[in-house]
């Protein structure tokens, strides 16, 4: 499944400056693993050591917070768009 992922400013160093990247996966977890393969270091910024999403990182699937869906297990369809957004936006970000 091809998915579009929007990257917030503080993580763009890892994506070589891109604000949007393509990824593959049938659910959010798989997308994160796929991102980590292509952009090493990205996963630890958004997930705890045990794989759980960090408390102050939000992931939106088509504008809905995945925490209120099936979290990392939320299933994806072709051409879905996800956004990674720090909960406390602003400041130097």
């Amino acid at each position, binding site marked *: 499944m091809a998915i579009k992922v929007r990257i917030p400013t*503080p993580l763009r160093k890892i994506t070589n400056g891109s604000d949007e990247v393509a990824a593959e996966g049938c659910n959010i977890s798989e997308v994160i693993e796929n991102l980590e393969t292509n952009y090493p270091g990205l996963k630890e*910024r958004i997930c705890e050591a045990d794989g759980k999403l*960090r*408390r*102050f*990182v939000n992931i939106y699937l088509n504008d809905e917070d995945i*925490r*209120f869906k099936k979290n990392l297990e939320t299933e994806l369809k072709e051409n879905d768009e996800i956004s990674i957004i*720090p*909960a*406390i*936006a*602003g*400041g*130097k*970000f």
Partner: protein
Amino acid sequence: MSYMKALKCRECGKEYAKEALHVCELCFGPLEVIYEYDKIKEVLTREIIEKRAPNMWRYRELLPLDNEPSVGAQVGFTPLVRAHNLGKALGLKELYIKNDAVNFPTLSFKDRVVSVAISRARELGFKIVACASTGNLANSVAANAAACGMESYVFIPYDLEKTKIMGTIVYGATVVGIKGTYDEVNRLCSEIAGKYGWAFVNINIRPYYAEGSKTFGYEIAEQLGWKLPKNIIVPMAGGSLITKISKSFKEFIKLGFVEDTGTKVFGAQATGCSPIINAVKEGSELIRPVKPNTIAKSLAIGNPADGYYSAKVMRESGGWGESVTDEEIISAMKLLAETEGIFAETAGGVTLGVTKKLIEQGRINKDESVVVCVTGNGLKTQEALNGHLSEPTIINSRLSEFEDLVKANGKEYVVKA
């Protein structure tokens, strides 16, 4: 002499220099000020504090400044009122009102956070201060900026109470009303803070700003005779105040100033904006944002920055949370005014209304000490009472008309000869 050590991420523990930072660059968690408590313990005692002037700076070792405060030297040490009449009405044995409706200079607890934030912003070299506000913060930033000769920008939802808007503009602040909710105001301010590099007291200066609220809790403990209350009820918007009151009690315990007698911390919100209460009631760690609709505009934050930590404070202290409707808010504002002579703003109505509910639910033990936090002044939210108070009776300046009135009211009084 400063005992402020560093900033530290509340989530992953990474430490940062004490600059204008508020988010952890590693995990995006919020940053908090940490202190050298062992050193504070060597130099600060209850007796030293008691000898100092009656304002919030009597606890200065526990506040995040490198030097003396440069604005707001008189803020704080507001009355802790033993509320016998209201206590009787509620069936409580030992009730207190902590009354920041008379805090100086702008009649809300926000003067505590703002005097710390602006003093710190000046230490860090900022020339312009700003904030995103639901009203009280706007008043305080504008007044305190004026008092120290700084330029200020205040961003608010456009539909705030008129008094809160006028009470900001009068100090010469540039006031920008945003067509949207507080959460939209806040989002815009985050962008402006990043781009213009101004000191937004509750955004990039937030770790320092938030510490100012601790003084509300320190004062309660000292005014109770160096004791903690068994129950405290705190109004919540972003959830910073309740978190910092809890921190203040823990710090006093750590310093040996009070005994740990197990304070239950209760949170209060309006039913029309209760994202934190919803999470507490559902037993969830997740705060689901809401779109606010309540007369308690000062508390109308639908996506509270410290919601998670507030819910945690309530849960871990054995407290709870409740919400009240607009009608309940108004009747509680009247009850407080009529029993104690204290005119609180809508947020005070929320706090007292919730207190009443928690007593009825049996969650607050009537024999224990209870502190109700009044954080803002009723004169600023008078329009909430429109149509809810009786009108004055208008008569001509004739004694007979007055006597007719007494009769019409069914009253009879003893007259002198």
